[in-house]
C-alpha cells in the first residue's frame, strides 16, 4: 500500500515534451529526480524509462502516482473510441447542434465535429419533465433494439443520456441495466452518473467525452500496470485527476473524463502543498512553459475548483476541475509587428520545432526565449545550440529585422519591448483570475514554476503589486511533485434548484450525507491507505431569475437557511457590490468533495544538503551583464541554486541557475531561502 515505509513513493508526470519523475523515500528522506523525453505513442515507455533513469527499481517502490495526458491528447487529436448514443426521442441532435455558437465572435467560418457522429445517435421513447415526473414511460424494447444496433455498428462504448435525468435518473438507470446486460464490455456511461447537473448539452458532452476516452485510458493503464507488475511492482498505482486528487488505477476508467487536464491540476496541487508548509496559504500560481502559461488561484491552501472547462470550441467538460486559466504566451511565443505598427507577442508559437532561434533548429522569428537570451537573463552557454550553433549576432539580426526596424529600436530595445509586452499580457491573465473574481492580487503570494515561470515572475509580481514571490526548490518538476503530494479526491454535484424560502433543509442534509457516503465508499473500494478523510461542501446559488451562479462554501451538512442567505449575500456583495434584498435567493447545486488525506511527505530534502557552499558568495558562478527594465544593463551576480547555503540571503539584481530553470531577481528585490528549499523573494525590498 502507498505509504508503506519499505520504499520510495514516486510521482511521475507525462508532459508534452518531457516525462518528469520525483521519488521520495519517507524514511531516509532521500529524493531522486529524473527527466526523460515523453514517448508519445505509448506513454508507458517514458514512465518506465524515467523510473530506470532515477535509479529506481519498481520492485522496491511503495507507490506510484501517475499524471498522464492520455485522455487530453486523445480528445484534442480525436484518437477516441467509436461511441454510440441512446437518448430521448426528438433530441439525438442536441450533441451536434450545441448551444448555437460559433468558434470566434467575429468571422463566420470554422468547423465543428461532434464526438459522436449522427449515424451513431439513436433515440428511444421516454420523457421526464423538469420536476422529475414521468411524461412518457421508458420503452425498454426500444432500448434493447438501440443497443443491438450500436453493437452491430461496431461501437466500443455507449452513452445513455436522457433529458432531466439530473432530477430523476430512473429511466437512465433502467436503460443502463438493459444495455449492460447486452454490451460486450464495461464501457457504458450514464449521463447523470458522471454529472448530475442540468443543461443537456454540457451534461451530454461530458458523458460523451467520458465514453470516448474510457477504452483508451483503460487500455493504457492496464498495459502500464502489467509492465510494472512484470518488473516486480507490488503496490498501488494511483492516477491524477483534473480535480487535483488521485484515484486508484483499478477504478480510474469508470470516470475517465476526470483525468482530463490533470497535468495543470497537479502543478497547482504541488503549489498548495508547498505554500501550506511554507506559510503562504493564499497563492496565485504561474506556470510558464514553451507554448502557453497557466494561472491558478489557491485560497487558504485549497486550490479553486470549477466545473466550467471548455477544452476546445464547443467541447464543455463540466466535471469539477482545478480552475486553471491558460493563455497563449510561452517561451516559444513569436514576436511580430502587425500592419498598424503594433508589437504583438504570440499567440503564434515556434513550438518545439523549429523552436526559438537559439535552439538552432531552423527558427528565424524572434521568440520570448530569444529575447531573454539576448538580454543575458538566460545563460548563453547553456542555450545556444551545440549541434548547429547559432550566434548571438543571428539573434540580434532577427530582433532588428522582425521588430526593431519597424519600431525604430535596436536589438536590445526590441528584446526589452518583447519582454515587457509579454509580461503585460501575462499580468492581464492574472488579473482576470483574481480581480475579476473579486480577489486583490496584493493579498497573495505568487508561486512560479515551469521551465520559464521563474524568469518572468519577479517582473510580473511587481506589475501586479504582489508583495511576495515563492520559487519552489524544483520548479521544473512541480507537476511530478504534485502527483506525490496529492490526496485521493472525489467530487459530487447534485442539482436542487429551489428558492431558499421553500427549500427543504432536510433535503440539503440528506443530499450532502449521500454525497459523503458515496465518496467514502469509493475511497474504501480503492483500497489505498489514508490518514484521514476530509469533506468540503459548497453550494451554487443565484437570485431567482438569474442564470449564472456564485459558489459559496458551506460549514457542514447541518447548514441553516439563515446561514445560506447570509453566505450568499456576503459573497454577492464581494463580487458585484450589489445587494438585492428584494429578490429570493435560490440554491442551485450542492457539491461535496471527499478527500482522503495521504501521509505527509518531507519536502525539506528536495534540494540535497551536500555540496552546499558556506556562503552566498561561494555559490557564485560568474558575473555577467544582464538587462533589467529598471536601470538597463547591469553587472549581475549569477548563482548556482544547488550550492546556495541553507538560509541564504541576497539582493537583486541576480540570476539563479539550476538544472531545469533560471530565476531572475530584479534590482531592489530581496531573496531568502527558507528551510523547505524555497526562495522567498520580497518584491521591491518589502520586509518579509
Amino acid at each position, binding site marked *: 500500500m502507498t505509504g508503506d515505509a519499505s520504499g520510495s513513493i514516486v510521482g511521475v508526470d507525462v508532459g508534452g515534451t518531457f516525462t518528469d519523475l520525483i521519488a521520495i523515500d519517507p524514511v531516509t528522506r532521500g529524493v531522486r529526480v529524473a527527466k526523460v523525453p515523453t514517448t508519445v505513442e505509448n506513454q508507458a515507455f517514458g514512465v518506465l524509462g524515467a523510473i530506470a533513469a532515477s535509479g529506481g527499481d519498481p520492485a522496491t517502490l511503495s507507490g506510484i502516482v501517475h499524471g498522464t495526458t492520455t485522455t487530453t491528447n486523445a480528445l484534442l487529436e480525436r484518437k477516441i473510441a467509436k461511441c454510440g448514443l441512446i437518448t430521448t426521442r*426528438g*433530441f439525438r*441532435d442536441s450533441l*451536434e*447542434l*450545441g*448551444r*448555437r*455558437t*460559433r*468558434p*470566434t*465572435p*467575429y*468571422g*463566420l*467560418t*470554422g*468547423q*465543428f465535429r461532434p464526438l459522436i*457522429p*449522427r*449515424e451513431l445517435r439513436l433515440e428511444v421513447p421516454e*420523457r421526464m419533465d423538469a420536476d422529475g415526473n414521468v*411524461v412518457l414511460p421508458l420503452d425498454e424494447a426500444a432500448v434493447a433494439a438501440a443497443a443491438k444496433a450500436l453493437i452491430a455498428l461496431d461501437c466500443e462504448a455507449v452513452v445513455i443520456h436522457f*433529458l432531466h435525468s439530473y432530477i430523476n435518473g430512473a429511466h437512465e438507470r433502467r436503460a443502463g441495466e438493459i444495455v449492460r446486460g447486452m454490451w460486450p464490455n464495461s464501457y457504458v456511461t450514464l449521463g447523470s452518473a458522471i454529472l448530475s447537473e*442540468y*443543461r*443537456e448539452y*454540457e451534461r451530454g458532452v461530458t458523458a460523451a467525452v467520458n465514453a470516448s476516452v474510457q477504452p483508451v485510458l483503460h487500455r493504457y493503464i492496464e498495459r502500464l500496470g502489467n509492465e510494472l507488475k512484470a518488473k516486480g511492482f507490488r503496490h498501488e498505482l494511483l492516477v491524477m485527476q483534473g480535480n487535483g486528487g488521485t484515484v486508484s488505477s483499478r477504478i480510474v476508467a469508470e470516470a475517465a473524463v476526470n483525468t482530463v487536464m490533470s497535468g495543470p491540476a497537479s502543478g497547482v496541487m504541488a503549489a498548495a502543498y508547498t505554500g501550506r508548509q511554507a506559510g503562504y496559504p493564499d497563492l496565485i500560481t504561474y506556470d510558464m512553459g514553451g507554448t502557453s502559461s497557466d494561472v491558478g488561484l489557491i485560497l487558504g491552501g485549497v486550490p479553486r475548483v470549477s466545473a466550467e472547462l471548455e477544452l476546445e470550441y464547443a467541447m464543455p467538460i463540466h466535471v469539477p476541475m482545478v480552475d486553471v486559466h491558460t493563455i497563449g504566451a510561452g517561451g516559444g511565443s513569436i514576436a511580430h*509587428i*502587425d*500592419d*498598424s*505598427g*503594433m*508589437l504583438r507577442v504570440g499567440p503564434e508559437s515556434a513550438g518545439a520545432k523549429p523552436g526559438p532561434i537559439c535552439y538552432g533548429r531552423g527558427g528565424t522569428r524572434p521568440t520570448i526565449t530569444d529575447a531573454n537570451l539576448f538580454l543575458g537573463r538566460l545563460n548563453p552557454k547553456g542555450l545556444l545550440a551545440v549541434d548547429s550553433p547559432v550566434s548571438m549576432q543571428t539573434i540580434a539580426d532577427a530582433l532588428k529585422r522582425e521588430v526593431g*526596424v*519597424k*519600431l*525604430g*529600436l535596436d536589438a536590445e530595445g526590441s528584446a*526589452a*519591448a518583447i519582454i*515587457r*509586452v509579454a509580461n*503585460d*499580457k501575462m499580468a492581464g491573465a492574472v488579473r*482576470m483570475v483574481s*480581480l*475579476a473574481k473579486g480577489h486583490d492580487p496584493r493579498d497573495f503570494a505568487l508561486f512560479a514554476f515551469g521551465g520559464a515561470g521563474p524568469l518572468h515572475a519577479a517582473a510580473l509580481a511587481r506589475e501586479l503589486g504582489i508583495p511576495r514571490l515563492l520559487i519552489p526548490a524544483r520548479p521544473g518538476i512541480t507537476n511530478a511533485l504534485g502527483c506525490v503530494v496529492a490526496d485521493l479526491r472525489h467530487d459530487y454535484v447534485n442539482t436542487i434548484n429551489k428558492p431558499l424560502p421553500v427549500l427543504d433543509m432536510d433535503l440539503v442534509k440528506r443530499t450532502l450525507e449521500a454525497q459523503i457516503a458515496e465518496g467514502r465508499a469509493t475511497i474504501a473500494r480503492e483500497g489505498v491507505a489514508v490518514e484521514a478523510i476530509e469533506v468540503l461542501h459548497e453550494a451554487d446559488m443565484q437570485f431567482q431569475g*438569474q*442564470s*449564472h451562479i456564485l459558489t459559496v462554501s458551506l460549514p457542514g451538512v447541518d447548514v441553516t437557511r439563515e446561514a445560506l442567505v447570509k453566505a450568499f449575500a456576503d459573497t454577492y456583495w464581494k463580487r*458585484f*457590490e*450589489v445587494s*438585492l434584498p*428584494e*429578490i429570493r435567493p435560490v440554491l442551485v447545486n450542492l457539491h461535496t468533495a471527499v478527500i482522503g488525506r495521504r501521509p505527509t511527505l518531507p519536502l525539506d530534502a528536495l534540494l540535497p544538503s551536500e555540496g552546499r557552499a558556506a556562503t552566498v558568495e561561494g555559490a557564485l558562478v560568474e558575473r555577467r551583464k544582464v538587462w533589467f527594465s529598471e536601470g538597463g544593463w547591469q553587472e549581475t551576480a549569477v548563482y548556482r541554486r544547488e550550492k546556495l547555503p541553507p538560509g541564504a540571503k541576497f539582493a537583486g539584481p541576480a540570476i539563479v541557475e539550476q538544472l531545469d530553470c533560471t530565476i531572475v531577481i530584479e534590482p531592489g528585490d530581496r531573496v531568502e531561502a527558507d528551510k523547505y528549499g524555497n526562495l522567498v523573494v520580497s518584491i521591491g525590498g518589502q520586509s518579509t
Partner: protein
Amino acid sequence: MNDVAAKTKFDPVTLAVIENGLQQVCNEMDLAFVRAAFSPVISEALDRSDGIYHRSTGELIAQGELGLPVFVGTMQFGAKAVIDRAKNLKPGDVYIVNDPYLGGTHLMDVRFVKPFFYKGELFCWLSNTGHWPDTGGMVPGGFSANATEVEQEGLRLPPVKLFKEGVMDEEILSIILSNIRIADQRIGDIKGQAAALAIGEKRLTDLLDRYGKDTVEDAIGELKARAARLMRARIATIPDGTYYGESYVDSDGVVDEPLVIRLTVRKEGTELYFDLSKSSPPCRGPMNSVIATTRSSIYLAIKHIFPEVPINAGTFDPLHIEDPKGTFLYAEYPRPVSGCAAEVSQRIAEAVFNALVQAMPDKLFAAPAGTSGNLALGGYDPERKRSYIMYVISGGGYGGSAVGDGISNGCSTIGISKTTPIEVMEQYYPVLFEEYSLHEGSGGAGRTRGGFGVNYRIKLRRGQARASMVMDHGRTGPRGALGGNDGGLNTVRVQRSGKEYTPPHLSKDQNIEIGPGDTVSVSTPGGGGFGDPLARAPDLVLADVQRGYYSAQQAQAKFGVVIAGTPPALDRTATERLRAGATARP
C-alpha cells in the same frame, strides 16, 4: 506605413500596455454585467455590450471583446446623443435611455451612460447596453410584428438621470416599473448594469493613476489612428471596383410585400463607399432601421470579414456610408423599429457579404442563415400563479466557404449568444419541447455546402398563452455564392385544437392565442452553398446521406450524386454520367 510608426512619440510598449488595459476595463464590465444579470437575454444570450467613449464626440475608445456585435458602433451614437443633452454633470450620475432615434436599436436595448471623472474633471464616458425582456408595448417581449408607430412598441425613454450622484431616482424608477411587464426582477438588472459601470470606473481610475492622464489621452488618439491604418491595410487587399449585393426582408409584418436592400460597394484605394439609396422606401410595419443600426450593421459585417482589426472609432474611418434617406434603412420618428436590431441588420450584413464575396471569393462565404428567429411566448401559468415571457432565439446554418462547409446552428451574425438549455426553459415555463433537431436538407448545396438549421416543437402544457414572432428568410433562403444554391427556408406552423395555422407573412406574426396541448413548430434556415454543387466530392455527399443530412433523392437532385441501397452506397459510374450530362446542358 512602418516608417510612420517609427516616428510617433510613443514607445511601443506603453502603447501596447494601454491598449491592453483599456480592453481589459471593458472586458471586466462585460463579465460583471453578464454574471449579475437577471434578464436571460443578457445572462445567457449575452445581448449586451460595454465600452468607453470620448468625452465630447462620443467616439468609441474601446469596447469589450465579448460585446454583442450589433452594438459595435451603435453605442457611440447613443453616447453622443446623451452628451448633446447632458446638463450639470456630477460624478455618480448615470443616464438611462432607450430612444431608438437617438443612436439606438430597438426599445428593448436599454443603455446606461455614465460620465467618468478623473481628479474632478470629465475624462470620458462609460456606457453599456442590455436587452431587457420587456419594455411595455402591445406584445410581451416587445417584438411586435404589426406595430405601425413606435408608441405601440413600448416605453420610450429620453436620456434621464436614473442615478444622481450615485443615488437612484425612485420616481423615475417607478415610472419605468409601472410601464413594463415582469417588473419585479428588473431592479436586479438595473443594479447589475450600474454595478458593471462602477467596476469599469474603478479599473479605469487605476489605469490613469498608473500611466497618467496625458499619456492615456495621447495613447487613445494614437490607437485610433493605428486601427484606421490597420483597416486601410486590409481594405487595400480588395481589388478596386464596384460590387453590387442585395437581400430581401420577407415583409414588414403589416404589408405583405418583400423589402429589398440594394447595396453598391465601391472600393477605391484604401476606402470603401457604401450606397444603400436604392433600397425600399420606409415601411408601415416595424422593419425600419434607425441609422445607428444601419451603420453598425455595415461595421459588423466588415468586422466579420476582417476579425483581427481591433474595434475603436478609427476602425470605421475608411468606411464611408451615405445616409440612405428616403429608404427603410433611415427610420425617423414615429416609424416602428422593433425588427431592426435582430433582422434588418442581418439583411444589411448579408448584402455586404453578397457584394464582397465576388471581390474576395477566398476570404468570404455564402450567406449565413442570418435571422435571430425571435419567438416570444407570453402567458399565465395557473399552477405557479404567475405571468411569464419565454424567449426562444434560434440559430441556423452558416454559408459554405473556400475553407469548408458551414457550421450548423450558428448564432445570428449580429449576436454571440448561446441557446437557453431546454432543461432550463422547461423549469421556468409551462412548456414541453417535443423535438429539437437538425433541419435536414436545409444546407444550401455547393462545392462546400451550407450548415443546417434547427427544428423545434413546443407544446403548451397548461394555461393560455400568446405567441409572437419576428423571423425572416421564410420566402427566400440565404443566398448561395459563386454557383451555390440558397439555404433552406424558415417555416412556422401552429397546431391549435388539432388545426394547423401558418402565419400569412410566413415568418412574422403576433399574439397567436394558444391553449393547453397546442404546439408551435419552427424550422430555421440553412446556410447558402458555395461554388458549384456538381463539384462537391461524391464521397462527401455520401457521408452527408449516411448521416441523414440529405436524402438520396436530394443528393441526386442537388449534387448530381447517385446513391442507392441500405446502407447507402455510392454509384460512381451513374454519378459520373449524371454529372457529365448536367454540365453539358446549357
